[in-house]
């Protein structure tokens, strides 16, 4: 018998939990069909996480593509169908592979398995990121470099910590439900070992009384702990940098790993800082949302002398 897992019509970070809830109790070896026939919309997070579902199971799952032509066409153009066909047993009409020409897609779904992939992603996205972040989201031009840096660090987490390849996608869309503004969304998902196991592999790791996925997320994201930190003080700065980037541009960062999810939420969002006891899903799934700036674009600060410094003097 095949168990059918329904993909919600609108698949984003929140509704993806419905997929995990259905999937988590099923033992390996169970025949599973991921049914996306009624899906109409999916965020970059939803699509990259769906690829992780296939990677998370030992057996090859079946996948039913969306029935709606526009949805299927879009999933194809953003690269989902091409990658899914390598991981799933596909059902439905698989459209011919085409490159993404969506103006709102900054980066189609791209596999990340090694450092060279990170160079490729950062190099490809820069001009389009500048056009959209500054031209359409009204953000200071300084965001472009910081955006590339954030993307690089987020992707490097996969290479250095996941233990297997993952996925990245970047897209602009209008965040109607919660914000009523345009946003750029980065999704970086993998089905690797997750934060808890990564930190446990550090030679200096000592489990506390409360050591679980939530604690591991807090250590990594809030306290810049890294499994490489033992003997190298410089490690663990990537996630701290991502957190600062998100805070500076009034964005939102969420990271899910294992059974926990951590959110750094801005004033426009009321998400819980830490959610625990979720159904287990392997690896780490990260989403970064940067909203449009309302009003005039800010003028760049001058670049002379000590004013260039962010730190000033320490006391």
């Amino acid at each position, binding site marked *: 018998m095949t168990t059918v897992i329904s993909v919600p019509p609108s698949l984003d970070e929140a509704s993806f939990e419905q997929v995990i809830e259905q999937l988590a109790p099923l033992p390996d070896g169970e025949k599973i069909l991921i049914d996306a026939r009624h899906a109409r919309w999916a965020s970059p997070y939803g699509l990259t996480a769906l690829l992780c579902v296939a990677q998370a199971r030992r057996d090859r799952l079946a996948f039913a593509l969306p029935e709606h032509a526009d949805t299927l066409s879009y999933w194809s153009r953003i690269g989902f169908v091409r990658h899914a066909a390598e991981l799933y047993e596909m059902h439905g009409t698989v459209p011919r592979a085409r490159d993404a020409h969506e103006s709102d897609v900054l980066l189609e779904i791209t596999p990340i398995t090694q*450092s*060279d992939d*990170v*160079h490729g992603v*950062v*190099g490809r996205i*820069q001009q389009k990121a500048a056009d959209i972040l500054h031209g359409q989201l009204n953000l200071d031009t*300084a965001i*472009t*470099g*910081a955006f*590339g*840096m954030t993307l*690089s*660090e987020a992707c*490097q987490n996969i*290479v*250095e910590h996941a233990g297997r390849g993952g996925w990245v996608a970047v897209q602009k869309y209008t965040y109607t439900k919660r914000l009523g503004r345009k946003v750029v969304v980065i999704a970086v998902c993998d089905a690797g070992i997750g934060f808890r196991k990564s930190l446990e592999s550090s030679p200096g790791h000592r489990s506390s009384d409360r050591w679980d996925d939530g604690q591991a997320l807090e250590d990594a994201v809030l306290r810049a702990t890294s499994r490489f930190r033992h003997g190298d*003080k*410089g*490690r663990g*700065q*990537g996630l*701290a*940098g991502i957190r*600062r980037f998100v805070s500076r541009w009034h964005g939102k960062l969420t990271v899910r790993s294992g059974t926990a999810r951590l959110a750094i939420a801005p004033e426009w969002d009321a998400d819980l800082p830490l959610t625990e006891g979720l159904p287990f899903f392997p690896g780490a799934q990260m989403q970064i949302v940067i909203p449009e700036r309302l009003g005039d674009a800010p003028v*760049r*600060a001058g*670049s*002379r*002398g*000590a004013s*260039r*410094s*962010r*730190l000033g*003097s*320490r*006391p």
Partner: protein
Amino acid sequence: MSRCIDVGTVLRGTVCDLYSNLVTRPTGAAVRTAIEQQVRELAAPDVTTIDFSQVNLLDFSCADEIVAKLLLRYTADDGLRGYLTFRGLHEGHLDPIETVLERHALALVSWHEGEAELFGYVDDDERAHWEVVRAHGPIRAPAVAEVLAVSESAAHAHLVRLERRRLIMLRDEGYTVPGAVRGSS
């Protein structure tokens, strides 16, 4: 003797001739190793300047591997001889660089449009002494003490500390900022 090393050229010559962004830790480690090799081959020049003007994007990993680890090599007791300065740093480079400097309690001297700048982990007294050296160098401790209205022993202690951190250098004529040409300020 001084030497300038263009990081963009090192990146393309060492890692990949198609790259213009300094991202990922393995890239940073490869570039740093190549720079250290160049410094050693030149029998440790007095001042080595690392030029970032051809680098578009720098992430935290590369800032740590290149900037912080090179500075750590220079400030270690048995590390590289001479002084390290930077130039061509733009606004986008400063956030990751200042982050890693803070993490390692390091500071650096950067040259921008002919003027030396001090970035990183320094306290108010260190900065004040460094700025006097920048403005008046070459200068000796008694003259620095007079400018800042502090005791000679206090000025001397701060200058020795800044010299040990490779943020100023001591020459026969007195203390000066690395890379400064007499009369250039």
